């Protein structure tokens, strides 16, 4: 089967502005490499979870896929076509098929537009239905995400966080996309509301055969919704595999540590020994060799000099580590 989305060697860099003092001192411009040569495929009807801590580059990767950041190297192919070359027409076409849902349900809606206006804009711009059918289509979309037609006239401030997220989802669904990128889409919601939205996502996925990239830091949520999972650390995908492979048989030391650090229900008070020491290095100052070498419990001399190869553990699982067993 052909992948719907292919990311090839994608690199996104953010240069830091030099101050006048830096220029006078002749200091070189610093560049943060937020995404570093990432390869990723997403197949039709598949949900790929993208996990990692802050600064791992998961949000940047998601946004670069949608063309919201310009990559400094690499390609994004959607349906076999290169959509990352900055061509506006290609990007507009991409956005009919690929939509994004953002983390903060309040700030991702325009506070001065009603729910109906928010959805209406996308419908008219992409000419999804004839103009006279737009009101009916808005009602249909609201029903799709579990909101009542009375909500159409409301402003975001009159909605709860869960309702705002449903509006964001209705807006994304309005163009009838084949794929959604969801960036921490349930992170801001309380657990009882989070469960409602997760169930809604599963229903929509089933009904419309959607592909999804589900970006989240919450591992239990990612496990719940994903078919495959990619683990990011400091701009690289360090391990990718089927959900069971990542959660039951992780091979990369970072994935193993991350899973060990997650608090679990069903345990009782225990003496804790922190799994990982130290913190993620700055993206302006990425260590040579393996990115994880500064915190890795299994670090050896080679890790400090050589970039680890991507080792195939199975036909579906790969880990970038010198010492994958």
């Amino acid at each position, binding site marked *: 089967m052909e992948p719907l989305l292919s990311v090839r060697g994608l690199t996104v860099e953010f240069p830091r502005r030099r101050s006048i003092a830096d220029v006078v001192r002749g200091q070189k411009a610093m560049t943060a490499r937020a995404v570093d040569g990432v390869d990723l495929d997403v197949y039709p009807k598949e949900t790929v979870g993208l996990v990692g*801590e*802050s600064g791992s580059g998961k949000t940047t990767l998601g946004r670069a896929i949608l063309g919201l950041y310009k990559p400094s190297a690499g390609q994004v192919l959607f349906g076999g076509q290169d959509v990352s070359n900055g061509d506006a027409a290609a990007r507009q076409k991409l956005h009919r098929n690929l939509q994004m849902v953002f983390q903060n349900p309040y700030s991702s809606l325009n506070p001065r537009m009603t729910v109906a206006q928010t959805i209406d804009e996308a419908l008219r711009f992409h000419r999804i239905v004839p103009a006279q059918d737009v009101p009916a289509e808005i009602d249909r979309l609201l029903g799709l995400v579990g909101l009542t037609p009375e909500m159409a006239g409301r402003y975001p401030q009159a909605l*709860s966080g*869960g309702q705002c997220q449903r509006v964001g989802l209705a807006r994304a669904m309005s163009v009838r996309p084949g794929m959604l990128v969801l960036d921490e889409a349930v992170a801001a919601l*309380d*657990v*009882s*509301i*989070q*469960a*409602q939205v*997760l*169930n809604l996502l*599963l229903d929509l996925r089933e009904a419309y055969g959607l592909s999804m990239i589900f970006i989240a*830091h919450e*591992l*239990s*949520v990612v*496990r*719940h*919704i994903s078919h495959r999972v990619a683990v990011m650390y400091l701009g690289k995908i360090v391990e990718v595999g089927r959900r069971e492979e990542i*959660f039951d048989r992780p091979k990369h030391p970072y994935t193993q*540590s*991350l*899973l060990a*650090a*997650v*608090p*679990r*229900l*069903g*345990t*009782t*008070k*225990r*003496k*804790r*020994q*922190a*799994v*990982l*020491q130290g*913190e*993620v290095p700055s993206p302006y100052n990425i260590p040579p060799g393996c990115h994880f070498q500064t915190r890795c419990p299994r670090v050896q001399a080679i890790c400090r000099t050589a970039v680890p190869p991507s080792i195939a553990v199975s036909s579906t699982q790969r880990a970038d580590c010198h010492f994958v067993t």
Partner: protein
Amino acid sequence: MTTTERQTIQTSGETRPPILEIEDLVVEFHQGSKVVRAANHVSLSIRQGETVGIVGESGSGKSVLCRSILRLLPSPPSFVKSGRISFAGRDLLSLPESEMQKIRGADIAMIFQNPMNALNPVWPIGDQITEGERVHRHIGARAARECAVELLKRVGIPSPEMRVDEYPHQWSGGMVQRAVIAMAIVGGPKLILADEPTTALDVTIQDQILALLMDLQEATGTTLILVSHDMAVVAETCDRVAVMYAGRIMELAPTEEVFARPRHPYSLGLLRSIPRIDGKDQRLEPIPGQPPSLSDLPPGCPFMPRCRFASSECGTAEIVLREVAKDHFSACIKADDIAGMMS
């Protein structure tokens, strides 16, 4: 506290004396003509050396409860309508502000959710940590600096003597939270209130901070109240758990009891709506609807409109925490019907 005292406390187990007793606390916020009841007849007794978790969703009153203990809520708009908070035998709500000032930081310390907002951005971290010591105990600048270095070492900051003069923006979120913890333990408090101390942190850093808090607690025997929306964090760190909803404690029991044998429909609902990292694959069962408005609470049980066990009595019955099993309290009149629903 002397060593012998601490030993007696540890060996006597459950008979440890209460250090904090909250009785029938009602806290309201007045917003124009609206009255928002944020804490609604809360009673909670906490024993010395214990770790008690308070869980609940946004607006359930967990932070208000914490801040009421330290009297940190501005009045107006907040008012304590009724209730009593006694700490080590003293009635906190009737103390003059000058006495309360002495208790804050020295006897009761607080750790806030967002570490970056908890520190002053234009003041060196070391000076902030020892401000309390310099004010309360009048120690000199050099002694204060040594004290700050010692504390930073204790909370696991590498090369503290080099970093003590740095500013918060030079540190990461996890390191600043360690500094905030150093600030909390400087006065040797008997009680630490930690309000979502790891919510803003990544999971591997959260793991480090929880390990640090538990180590410090074991070393000093201090009492800890841990407020969190994350049930798993509470499950791994606390002896007892209070589940709050709409300003009330709905369930209060030893941690294992609450998670394995919940006796309130709200606790049960929460547990069933969380995806498990190691659980079976099953569809989540969300709690339908939304929490009630705190300015317009329904009569009777506030969870009734969302509860699948509700009947007409729930709208009229008085809501009180009653003991439904040993040390296990539930505010549900149908607590007996809920027993055994979790398995």
